[in-house]
């Protein structure tokens, strides 16, 4: 076994000087850190430390859930937050464990690499004096050739079996053949451990130099978006990336096709888009699906979801018209969708040309692509089989001018609570199908023109993905070599026949074998090798 369990050397003589004492401490700690036992403990710690991240909601995975957790556990949450409980995999203590582990790995693997390189260049050691002491042994058998020729033939046979082989002449006239095989085990093991390092480095740099953004894109050639931070609904850039580093491209959704099973289970989603990859360049058609992202230079566009955006035309009390296309967010599998359409700039008196904040208008409600014939308030199928919009009208101050960023998918509840915004339609929501018009109490009108589809896109770039994948693949190969391989040595001793024997020609051949790693099949292999070499010896 090449792996030696390194333990700190026993404390030497009382150190004469302080610096030496410090040096010894340092050296011992390093030895301790790079021992396999420590690696084992750190591996275990890593596994345990990963657990909280699956129990507590994680900001990086789902920030809304973290907010929910704070609401439900107002006392506990801030405490957990201080410990990094909502960002376990970016927390200092998690990093401490894996950095220690990888320091230990480097400290362990680099010396092993040097040892192995040396071992690859050195020849197998000479045969031990007493081959019968070895785990495998084949008693001497006489053959017709003289020792030198027999040893050469044996060596040739071993080399053919890909053993690294040396032949040595002994002072007593005997010849020995030393052979070793299975260096690939250690090679594979080293590849595996170095590949782990490559993966860690790749993941780290990917975090630094990668970026991603989410964007909800409504169908229509006038609603395209271009790759810049301001155009994302949500984005995050790695610490080494500036907003100006994002590559240029623009995208518009021309069509979205979804197919469903009869049960409403989705079968397939596909988005047709037009892409522009150079400033003022041509728009090229393309398409992508779930599991088949759009691969652009330095960016991948993934399809995450889709929904409907009702198109609504509002005619205010002075006859001014405004049309808005507003995405309604799906709430369930059947695409029951919720949303709000706000018209802050309406009911402007043409005489004064002044906006009256108390006459702003908004409609809130749900869109059902397929209305339930039995009257339940949810959609019963995700495609638009019998669509209808159910809206409630509000008038008053929407609170959108306060400068606070509000949701575009819900009304400001504060304004409703303080009475500045009032419901102006009946207790039950107004039902609208495409083409229908609803006249409000003050004579203003809302017309439902139809819907457009929208797609939610996740756009990312991770420059080190190939390194991580390559590292993982090499690691796997190394792992398999290491787990399947066996290091073993075989020796032959070919002696001149006993002096007493008549004729004087021929030789005696004895063999021994040593498995250097746990290898249950060694006995069989040894027998085969010995038998084959003996056959070669008798032509």
């Amino acid at each position, binding site marked *: *076994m090449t*792996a*030696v*369990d390194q*333990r700190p050397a026993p404390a030497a003589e009382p150190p004469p000087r302080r610096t030496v004492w410090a040096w010894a401490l340092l050296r011992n700690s390093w030895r301790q850190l790079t021992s*396999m*036992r420590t*690696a*084992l403990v750190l*591996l*275990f710690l*890593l*596994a345990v430390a*990963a*657990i909280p*991240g*699956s*129990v507590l909601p*994680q900001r*990086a*995975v789902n920030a809304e859930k973290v907010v929910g957790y704070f609401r439900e556990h107002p006392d506990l949450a801030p405490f957990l937050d201080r410990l990094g409980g909502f960002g*376990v*995999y970016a927390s200092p203590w998690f990093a401490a464990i894996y950095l220690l582990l990888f320091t230990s790995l480097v400290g362990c693997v680099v010396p092993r690499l040097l040892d192995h390189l040396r071992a690859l260049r050195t020849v197998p050691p000479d045969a031990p004096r007493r081959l019968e002491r070895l785990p495998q042994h084949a008693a001497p058998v006489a053959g017709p050739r003289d020792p030198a020729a027999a040893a050469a033939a044996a060596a040739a046979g071993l080399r053919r079996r890909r053993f690294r082989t040396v032949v040595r002449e002994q002072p007593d006239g005997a010849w020995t053949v030393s052979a070793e095989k299975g260096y690939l085990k250690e090679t594979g093991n080293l590849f595996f451990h170095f590949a782990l390092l490559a993966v860690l480095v790749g*993941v780290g740099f990917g975090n630094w130099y990668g970026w*991603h953004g989410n964007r909800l894109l409504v169908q229509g050639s006038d609603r395209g978006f271009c790759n810049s931070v301001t155009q994302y609904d949500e984005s995050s850039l790695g610490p080494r990336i500036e907003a100006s580093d994002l590559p240029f491209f623009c995208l518009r959704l021309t069509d979205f096709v979804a197919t469903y*099973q009869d*049960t409403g*289970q*989705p*079968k*397939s*989603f596909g988005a047709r888009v037009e892409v522009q990859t150079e400033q003022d360049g041509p728009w090229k058609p393309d398409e992508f*699906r*779930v*599991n*088949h*992202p759009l691969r652009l230079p330095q960016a*991948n566009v*993934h399809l*995450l979801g889709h929904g409907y955006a009702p198109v609504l035309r509002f005619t205010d009390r002075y006859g001014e018209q405004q049309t808005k296309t507003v995405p309604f967010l799906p709430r369930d599998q059947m695409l029951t969708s919720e949303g709000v359409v706000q018209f802050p700039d309406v009911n402007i008196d043409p005489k004064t040309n002044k906006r009256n904040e108390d006459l702003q208008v908004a409609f809130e409600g749900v869109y059902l692509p397929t209305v339930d014939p039995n009257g339940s308030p949810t959609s019963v199928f995700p495609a638009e089989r019998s669509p209808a919009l159910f809206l409630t009208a509000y008038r008053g101050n929407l609170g959108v001018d306060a400068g606070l960023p509000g949701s575009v998918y819900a009304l400001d509840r504060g304004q409703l609570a303080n009475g500045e915004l009032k419901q102006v339609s009946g207790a039950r929501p107004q039902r609208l199908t495409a083409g229908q018009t609803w006249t409000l109490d003050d004579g203003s009108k809302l017309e439902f023109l139809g819907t457009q589809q929208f797609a939610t896109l*996740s*756009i*990312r770039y*991770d420059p080190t*993905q190939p390194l*991580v*994948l390559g590292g*993982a*693949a090499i*690691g*796997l190969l190394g*792992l*398999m070599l290491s*787990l399947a391989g066996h290091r073993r040595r075989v020796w032959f001793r070919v002696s001149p026949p006993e002096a007493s024997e008549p004729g004087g020609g021929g030789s005696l051949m004895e063999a021994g074998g040593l498995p250097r790693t*746990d290898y*249950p099949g060694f006995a069989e292999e040894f027998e085969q090798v010995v038998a084959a070499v003996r056959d070669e010896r008798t032509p």
Partner: protein
Amino acid sequence: MADWSNQLMAVTVLTYLAAMVCYAAEYAFGDRSHIGRAAVRPARQLVGAGAPAEPPADYDVAAGAVARRDRGALFGLIGVGLNWLAFALHLGTAVTRGLAAGRMPWGNMYEFIIAVTLVGSAVWLGVLTRRPAVRHLGLFVTLALVVLLGAAGLIAYTPVGPLVPALNSYWYIVHVSTIILSSGIFLIGAVPAAMFLIKTGHDQGKRRFPYPLGAKVPAAVTLERLTFRLHAFAFPLFTFGALIAGPLWAEASWGRYWGWDPKEVWAFISWVVYAAYLHARATPSVKRTTATWIALVGFATMLMNLFGVNLFFEGLHSYANAGG
């Protein structure tokens, strides 16, 4: 077809149960059996590990013991036969399920457990064919299969349904099939691991439950080596399935190759723990029993991922509650 599958499932569990009863009967009656002797031998004489089980020459056999041996061995053989039958039925369950759904039968937790246990059963029968001497483990293997299949039917049953589009991918098939294969092998690996610990305790003279169970199983070295070989085979498969194919699919589907979703977290934990097992086994100063405990912890984390994560946590992978 879906009904067939459900009925086959019930019959499968019953057949495994019957096989288990036979193995148990052999265990109870067959203390002088061929296998029983192979198992008690190492306590008395030192034998090279992995040597074929042959009765020691100095063994004097009482007349009554011969009859009991035959009865015990007979039960054992019936057990093996039933085990093969159960495997065939089990295969039928999975195939009819796949036909009913018109896709690979591993789209939800119920199907996943059926597939994992099917692989486990196949690996066990393979091991049994190559080394009949480990037959006494059959009791514990079938016990594990019955428990898991029962849990699948009781907790995780899901009617046949199609896959959601995100699961409809080439990498997904590679990802799930390798995880199923490796989980099945880890499952079978956990049985000799547990029995090795029990056997070691028994050899040290411990007699409290569960150590008496170690009375008739194969020699400790044999169990330990079997444990290692199963794990060493499953680990690269699991590495490929969970840490390479899975991320490749996640990248194509969700845009990121790794996102610390609860299922990913627990796959990572299992991988680290199994790596620790292989590591511990290669560390000379760590005892084999300690290493084997780590392997069992690894299996516990796999179970956690299979049941706990699907049922308790919500994530992108939670197809268990999405109804298929």
